[in-house]
């Protein structure tokens, strides 16, 4: 018998789009100050979303227990975001508005995101800037002392606030400072070097987590009335990505196995401007901020295998292919389009550099127009970084860039309250399937992380917690905690006692290659079907042949990595299934079979106007797909055009 598919209810409040959030926020059930003191919330992950949520919940009076695997919350990967954060402030008086930010985000996401959530995101975007300024975030300023903006891909207004090329760092340090203040007041108990290894479910609700202390290896139980995951994205499933080495899917995956569905897992953002791969030993890829596309021009030689130095190739022999194909947006088309265009040129044989998998990003004209000093003031730190890595001087010779995995739009499915399908478990920031549809616009990840953490979750969690006040309280003595702890220990023991010969790293590399080759910038049915089998084999091979040295009762970086890679392998299979299910192209999901005559993504709104949400059905069964139908009341989905 075929099991009936669930249609997911996102619990969107009634009323006009523009008024939903304000009205809903004012009618949410409140938890009284006295009761907040009796309620504990666990927050896993302390990047932008987790740190801001922890601080805000603690300020409101809840007891917060926060966890991160890094040695300090200040080191979460949000710190590496370079370019900026969007907000509909219209400080530049260039016609920006909440509606326009909402519209750009929906369109940029290729009409695969939820209208009500995106509108709310645009609505609170302005508050984020105010909050961060008040915390002392040193945003760039104009001469007169007001906040400066720049433009980013996929939009025609300047709404991006920035702090040199280190906006993520400055925003994270702001959230970290708010978190530190609450730690000092003992409203937050901070647990660094703790990795979440399972969620504990009691009577169908998330009631705590199991962690491993990464210094002494202790397996610990933690009880709470609700659990919030803010554990970031899973781009490391591709092995090579711009993510930090520690970024992983483990917390998300454990939640998935306990009943939280994963939505649109195949929606991956491949960022167009990264430093190309230079060799087999490469451990990660480095992003060059999208802001470079404001002044840099992207091109390849018109002649294949042109061996001349790029600076010696005359103007008429250069193909500025983005400006040629998309005259309205030029070098500032959205990321998915810019990435695919680079791949297309390289596949056709016009790529440059030793691997022919690169295109030029050229500042010659910007330097001629504004002078080297201006270019240096805008991008100096990025140019320095580039030359440190490549030993080349971008002031003289154009940068070489190529697309790389950067962000995952997919993540845990959440309703309007940001609650997953496992009651009591919430997901915020990149960890949820988020507001970005099939493609995220630049400078919107920081916006979403902080919107969720500062201004949305702290309110919406009240709808759940207000009902928990009178419910029975448990403790870590409950049998479910003991049982889950045992399972976690068994898995670790299996890893460490497995007497294989292959390193964890070698499996991760193999996984990455399968993912990039078959589920990367373009996908097709045959490849995906083949890849599912390859991943199944890889999983078997891993558990048979992996070797993990050392002991469990001490720092053991290999056992940490082994657990993460094991989960990434399983995720890979679900990503393939999701990509196979979606017989259309949209945003970052490009299926070879579905494209327009010009080679652009061809959506199928009739059949695929939904969010896919995959449900775990046990180790030996295929996951089950559930769907949330997307309803567009305010914007009519059209073919995206940036021409």
């Amino acid at each position, binding site marked *: 018998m075929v099991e009936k598919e669930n249609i997911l209810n996102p619990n969107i409040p009634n009323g006009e789009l523009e008024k939903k959030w304000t009205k809903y926020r004012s009618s949410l059930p409140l938890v009284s100050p006295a009761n907040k003191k009796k309620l504990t919330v666990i927050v896993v992950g302390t990047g932008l979303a987790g740190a801001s949520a922890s601080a805000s919940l603690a300020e409101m009076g809840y007891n917060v227990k926060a966890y991160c695997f890094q*040695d300090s919350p200040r080191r979460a990967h949000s710190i*590496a975001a370079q370019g900026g954060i969007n907000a509909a402030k219209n400080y530049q008086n260039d016609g920006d508005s909440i509606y326009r930010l909402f519209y750009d985000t929906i369109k940029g996401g290729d009409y695969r995101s939820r209208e009500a959530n995106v509108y709310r995101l645009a609505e609170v975007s302005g508050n984020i800037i105010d909050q961060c*300024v008040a915390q002392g975030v*040193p945003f760039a*300023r104009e001469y007169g*002392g007001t906040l400066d903006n720049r433009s980013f891909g996929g939009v025609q207004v300047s709404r991006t606030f920035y702090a040199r090329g280190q906006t993520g760092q400055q925003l994270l340090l702001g959230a970290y400072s708010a978190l530190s203040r609450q730690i000092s007041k003992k409203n937050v108990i901070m647990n660094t070097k703790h990795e979440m290894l399972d969620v504990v479910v009691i009577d169908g609700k998330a009631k705590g987590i199991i962690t491993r202390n990464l210094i002494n290896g202790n397996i610990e139980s933690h009880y709470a009335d609700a659990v919030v995951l803010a554990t970031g994205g899973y781009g490391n499933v591709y092995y090579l990505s711009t993510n930090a080495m520690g970024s992983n899917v483990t917390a998300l995956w454990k939640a998935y196995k306990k009943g939280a569905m994963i939505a649109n897992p195949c929606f991956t953002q491949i960022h167009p401007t990264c430093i190309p791969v230079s060799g087999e030993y490469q451990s990660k890829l480095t992003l060059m901020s999208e802001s470079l596309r404001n002044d840099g021009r992207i091109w390849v030689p018109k002649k294949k295998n042109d061996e001349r130095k790029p600076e010696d190739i005359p103007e008429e022999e250069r193909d500025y292919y983005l400006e040629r194909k998309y005259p309205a947006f030029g070098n500032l088309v959205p990321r998915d389009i810019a990435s695919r265009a680079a791949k297309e040129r390289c596949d056709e044989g016009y790529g440059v550099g030793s691997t022919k998998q690169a295109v030029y990003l050229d500042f010659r004209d910007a330097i001629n127009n504004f002078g080297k000093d201006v270019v240096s003031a805008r991008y100096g730190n990025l140019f320095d970084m580039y030359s440190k890595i490549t030993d080349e001087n971008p002031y003289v010779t154009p940068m070489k860039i190529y697309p790389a995995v950067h962000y995952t739009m997919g993540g845990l499915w959440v309703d309007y309250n940001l609650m997953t399908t496992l009651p009591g478990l919430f997901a915020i920031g990149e960890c949820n399937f988020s507001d970005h549809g099939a493609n995220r616009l630049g400078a919107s990840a920081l916006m979403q992380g902080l919107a969720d953490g500062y201004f949305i979750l702290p309110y919406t969690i009240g709808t759940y917690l207000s009902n928990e006040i009178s419910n029975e309280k448990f403790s870590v003595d409950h049998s479910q905690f003991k049982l889950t702890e045992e399972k976690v220990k068994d898995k670790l023991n299996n890893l460490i006692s497995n007497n294989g010969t292959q390193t964890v790293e070698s499996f991760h590399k193999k996984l990455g290659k399968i993912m990039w080759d078959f589920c990367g910038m373009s996908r097709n049915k045959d490849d995906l079907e083949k890849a599912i089998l390859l991943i199944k084999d890889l999983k078997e091979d891993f558990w048979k042949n992996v070797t993990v040295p050392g002991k469990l009762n001490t720092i053991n970086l290999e056992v940490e990595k082994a657990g993460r890679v094991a989960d990434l392998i399983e995720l890979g299979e679900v990503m393939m299934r999701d990509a196979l299910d979606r017989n259309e192209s949209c945003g970052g999901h490009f299926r070879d079979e579905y494209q327009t005559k010009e080679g652009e993504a061809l959506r199928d709104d009739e059949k695929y106007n939904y969010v896919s949400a995959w449900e775990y059905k046990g180790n030996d069964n295929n996951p089950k797909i559930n769907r949330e139908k997307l309803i567009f009341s305010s914007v009519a989905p059209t073919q995206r055009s940036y021409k």
Partner: protein
Amino acid sequence: MKLINLYLKIWRQENVESKGYFESHKIENINSHMSFLEMLDVLNEDLIKNKKDPIAFEHDCREGICGTCSMTINGKPHGPLKGTTACQLHMFNFEDGDTITIEPWRAKPFKIIKDLVVDRSSFDRIIQKGGFISINTGSAPDGNAIPISQETAKEAFDAAACIGCGACVASCKNSSASLFVSAKIAQLSLLPQGHPERQKRVISMVDQMDAEGFGHCSNTGACESECPKEISIKNIAKMNQEYIKATLLD
């Protein structure tokens, strides 16, 4: 691209209590375009394949911004290249046949947990004593309500660029954390938003720095010259000025 061979002398230490020692390795055919940490990855893969314990070292973003990587290379925190973290150091900065010594941060308040991994939680505790502006979520005025000159914003940014790696402490003969602490104090006292708490902040942060066992600053400037983000020693002067003012007003 060229291939080089290297001799490594790496600090090994089982845990906080145990005694450490240098272990020698010869490593061959290193691509000059590898990063320093990728070179260590290659060594670790080899160790694991031979059923030996890999070298524990910390790293995360490998883009020079998270501040996680922390190792002293040939006597210099983060290695020979100015303004560069260990993860951004590439092997083309070394010659074939070089001997490279790799050690953890050496400072009493940074206990060695294993091999090259040290405990830097003292930095978090110092920030918790006042490295913030007390503003609750939702109570902020409009972002443009307080104009801040471009110059001030730039100066505040220069201080705020600190990545909290601890190289300043490791480079200082007194194990002073003054550069780290002063960078935060300078950022928040330059900006008008930070003014209401400036006296309280500087006193409690400096007290915590002392309580953690960091030494005094004797103005040698080693911290500034080894800082991967080139944070200026002027911040320390600013901190001292703030501290004196605060104690006079107290």
